[in-house]
């Protein structure tokens, strides 16, 4: 599994921390596990617990505590729109609402093709270029700033066309 498929990466992650502090590798390993399928499977959770020498309950609590980890499948692409105060002062709430209307979903839902999930998230440090969002997927996290509903819809069509 992770150790077999990503042998070098697991070794590189562990090498960042002191040999007696394997537990520190839990967060980067969770990202690694999430790269496939966009969420952490029960099997991956168990394996990470073994690598880090902690219990699977402890790994599960980490997944629950931090908002960028998922333990169940959702859309392939998470469109995460910041609606915190500075963005809201620049129209982020209206942007999010119109984007969802265009996609025919409510905030937090996934489109029928199972590809796009739209979420409202906390500040992303892009306040000066609002409305803005990030796209989280197995490929990582990418920022998109100074957005309009039109530019966002164009991007979403590009993402949908990818396979």
């Amino acid at each position, binding site marked *: 599994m992770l150790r077999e498929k990503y042998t070098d990466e697991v070794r590189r992650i562990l090498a*960042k*921390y*002191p040999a007696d*502090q394997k*537990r*520190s*590798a*839990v*967060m*980067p390993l*969770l*990202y690694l596990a999430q790269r496939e399928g966009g969420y952490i499977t029960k099997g991956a959770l168990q394996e990470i617990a073994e690598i*880090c020498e*902690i219990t699977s309950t402890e790994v599960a*609590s*980490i997944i629950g*505590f*931090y*908002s*960028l*980890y998922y333990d169940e499948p959702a859309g392939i692409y998470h469109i995460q729109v910041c609606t*915190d*105060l*500075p963005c*809201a*002062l*620049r129209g982020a709430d209206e942007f999010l609402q119109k984007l969802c209307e265009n996609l025919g979903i409510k905030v937090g839902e996934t489109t029928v093709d199972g590809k796009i999930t739209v979420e409202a*998230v*906390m*500040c*992303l*440090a*892009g*306040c*000066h*270029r*609002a409305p803005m969002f*990030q796209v989280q997927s197995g490929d*990582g*996290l*990418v*920022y998109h700033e100074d957005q309009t509903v039109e530019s966002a819809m164009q991007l979403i069509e590009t993402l949908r066309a990818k396979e």
Partner: protein
Amino acid sequence: MTDYILLRHREIPGLNTLEGYRATGGFNALRKVITTMQPDQVTEVVKASGLRGRGGAGFPTGMKWSFIDKKTYPHYVVANADESEPGTFKDREIMESNPFQFLEGVAICAFAVEAKAAYIYLRGEFWQVANSLDEKIAEMEAARLLGDKLFGTDATLRIFTHLGAGAYICGEETAMLESLEGKLGQPRLRPPFPPSYGLYGKPTIVNNVETLTNLPLILDKGAEWYRSFGTDKSPGTKVFSLSGNVNRPGNYELPLGTTFRQLIFEHGGGIPAEHKIKAIMPAGASSSLIIASEEALDTPMDYESVPKVGAQLGSASVIVVDDSVNIAWLLNKTIHFFKHESCGKCTPCREGTYWMLHLTERLTSTSATQADVDLLNSVASQIKGKCLCALGEFSIEAVLSGIERFPQDFPPISNSAS
């Protein structure tokens, strides 16, 4: 010519490449400290410069370093790159565009506090920034600017990045250390403070990205040179993140002591047409709301002056609010953030932010009454001074100041304010 210390990439093209950075004297300061100075001498220069922590607390950096426990080793340095305060986006620009100056700063700090390993803790959303820093770190290793026997001495240093995963609380230094140890990001009871009991229980210095990025030029040009910027008690420049209802939001590096008026109207281009400035939050969502009076606008933005108009400078994330905004709505926004980000460890914050969220939701509905305002004020006052860390304490700043200073925006509302 602007006097940039931090955002030098704006006038020096190619500063984000190793070659370009070295061409402007990059790593001269690191070479100087490692080959000619003792760690304590570096700390003395930083003390003399008057540099204060740029993450928000404004604690004197050199003094923090001098607290490091010299009886226990290894020592660690942790760079706080968790930048998550609503309204703050300065560290991101520094790391994206002037990365080597930041990394050189990390190295100088590590030498001064005798650490052989440094971790950069970035918020998970800065995934692209972390990838780019990993490349820069590899380039530095290849150029023997990191690793063993630096500059022909016995000095050793390695720098690693570590990504968080979406938790504002990890910007609090002890929560950050817990997170780096692979645990839930929840603050520790202090004392002991990190310089005596930090990462893995070892002496640790946690400094903000902007703080560290000041170091190469301070060590290169000296404390006196640094003190020629800013004010006597708040020396140097600061990156002000300007956002909200303003024509030109963005980062502005200006001397500490620049007034709100200069930042908002000269640099930021003022308020969008047909509106007037109503309130200022100088420290992001954690800030008290200042009434944007003439006196407030002429207040210098430094650590001593901002408290005189009833707020803190903090991370200098200046959110501008115009007269189209209802303050009860604004409080609902800030409390929604703090309720979501409360780590749940201490009761006043966990329960308090939950109830404040319900109350601010009610205040933005049509059924709001004066009793709701009084109850919100009461809940906020009961949180005050009782939390384990600053998150809970900061959550009430806007609430208490908003109710006190903008009573016209709270029920019973006579006109049809939005």
